[in-house]
């Protein structure tokens, strides 16, 4: 399987041509809207602090560097410097992510729109899918509505015990529930009970996430009209998580608190510490324009266009053959 003689690409030539066509169409989409294409470094002195994302490490002249897991930290520095709306087609790296939908290095299409909130950006992602993929117009509902329907619990209020009994009732046996937090149950139920139903007829957006899943999104207080939520969205097509976006957090103080909370989670999980990106925080102190941003998995976009069941069918050389 991994012998030296196994030199051929896993993607058919037709899939590689399709990928090239989609890249061209994506660039045309942004050119027509005056969104600037940018490039930012792959090698950074700091990296994402996400507790569940592992950066690859290397060094430059003996000084430590991280291969970026997303271009977002650099792109926000550009936004704070007055770039206006920008996009990037970036190669990113995440250690340990290998499967039918994952490869440790992959392509993210990431874009930021100044002056838009997450709903405004969902409108644009919807247009993108219609123009680039030929999709039907999308549907949109809150994370809470979809979770209630398919998992049978209120994701903003239910405790870990209630979510565990929902998982049991739905026939989702876990090896050991000992270390499961409320957040872990949300992820498990989402991945196993909700996502498979999403985006079957048409692209499906979920928005307004439970607070634990806020990542780098703004928080909106319910003020008696509903739960406090993170202004985050995700896009699903044919049960595949295709994009993740935020009404971007601009508050440098809050940003530092979230980085520190991530580092604390990493410590609890036994994951290596990573340095906080002070330059990005300094950029927020200068002022991030109000904006929304989204990262779209480009390889998965090609999978959908090609009707592929595995990411291997759209990569020239997946990690094990690289």
């Amino acid at each position: 399987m991994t012998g030296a003689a196994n030199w051929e690409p896993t993607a058919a030539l037709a899939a590689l041509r399709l990928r090239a066509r989609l890249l061209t169409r994506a660039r045309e989409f942004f050119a027509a809207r005056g969104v600037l294409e940018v490039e930012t470094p792959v090698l950074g002195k700091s990296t994402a602090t996400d507790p569940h994302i592992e950066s690859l490490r290397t060094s430059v002249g003996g000084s430590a560097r991280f291969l970026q897991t997303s271009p977002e930290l650099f792109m926000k520095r550009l936004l704070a410097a007055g770039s206006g709306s920008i996009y990037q087609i970036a190669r990113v790296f995440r250690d340990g992510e290998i499967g039918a939908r994952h490869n440790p290095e992959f392509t993210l299409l990431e874009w930021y729109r100044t002056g838009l909130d997450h709903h405004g950006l969902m409108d644009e992602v919807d247009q993108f899918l219609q123009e680039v993929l030929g999709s039907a117009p999308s549907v949109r509902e809150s994370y809470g509505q979809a979770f209630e329907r398919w998992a049978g619990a209120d994701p903003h209020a239910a405790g870990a015990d209630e979510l565990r009994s929902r998982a049991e009732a739905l026939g989702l046996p876990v090896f050991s529930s000992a270390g499961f937090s409320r957040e872990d149950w949300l992820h498990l139920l989402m991945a196993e009970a909700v996502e498979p139903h999403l985006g079957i007829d048409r692209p499906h957006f979920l928005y307004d996430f439970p607070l634990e899943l806020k990542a780098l999104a703004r928080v909106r207080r319910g003020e008696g009209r509903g739960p406090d939520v993170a202004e985050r969205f995700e896009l699903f097509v044919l049960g595949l998580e295709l994009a993740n976006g935020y009404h971007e957090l601009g508050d440098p103080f809050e940003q530092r608190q979230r980085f520190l909370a991530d580092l604390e989670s990493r410590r609890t999980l036994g994951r290596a510490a990573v340095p906080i990106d002070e330059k990005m925080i300094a950029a927020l102190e200068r002022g991030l324009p109000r904006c929304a941003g989204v990262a779209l998995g480009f390889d998965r976009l090609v999978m959908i266009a090609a009707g592929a069941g595995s990411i291997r069918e759209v990569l020239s050389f997946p990690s094990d053959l690289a």
Partner: protein
Amino acid sequence: MSTTYSTNQFRSGLKVTLDNDPCVITDAEFVKPGKGQAFARVKFRNLKTNRVLERTFKSGETIEGADIVETAMQYLYKDGEYWHFMDPKSYEQHQASAESVGDAALWLKENAECIVTLHDNIVLQVTPPMFVELEVIETEPGIRGDTAGTGGKTAKLETGAVVRVPLFIEVGEKLKLDTRTGEYVGRVK
């Protein structure tokens, strides 16, 4: 004592211990929400009961391996309760219950060479030789002219197995049989 395996080592064919029983992994899928906890969705087959089981693991969790060994052994004899086998290299003897011998019992004649699957040194499964030669102890009288072997009848063999055979087969004849299908292959001269 035994090895443990982490989720990133899971693959089809790996033998592990789940709920104290030996199991083989038949499928392991990586599930990872973009920002969330990674999971492995794993299917197992219980090697004792053959039942299929599913479990979801958090990435990084570990499971005990199962100490499974397949050894060629000689079938010795059966007492009231157990079948007895011997490793011809070490002369070590193992006894097997009716449950673990299963359908292999239909084909086992003394001195037959079998594959015995051991779990923690206890017999889990017995696989008979692919072909065996057994004597007919009961069948209707043969029809001499019918050498073409069209039609057929049943015959009981010395081990108790009942098989379909051609009409010309007589009591006392030795037959070659395929244990995978239970089919008659031919007469042994």
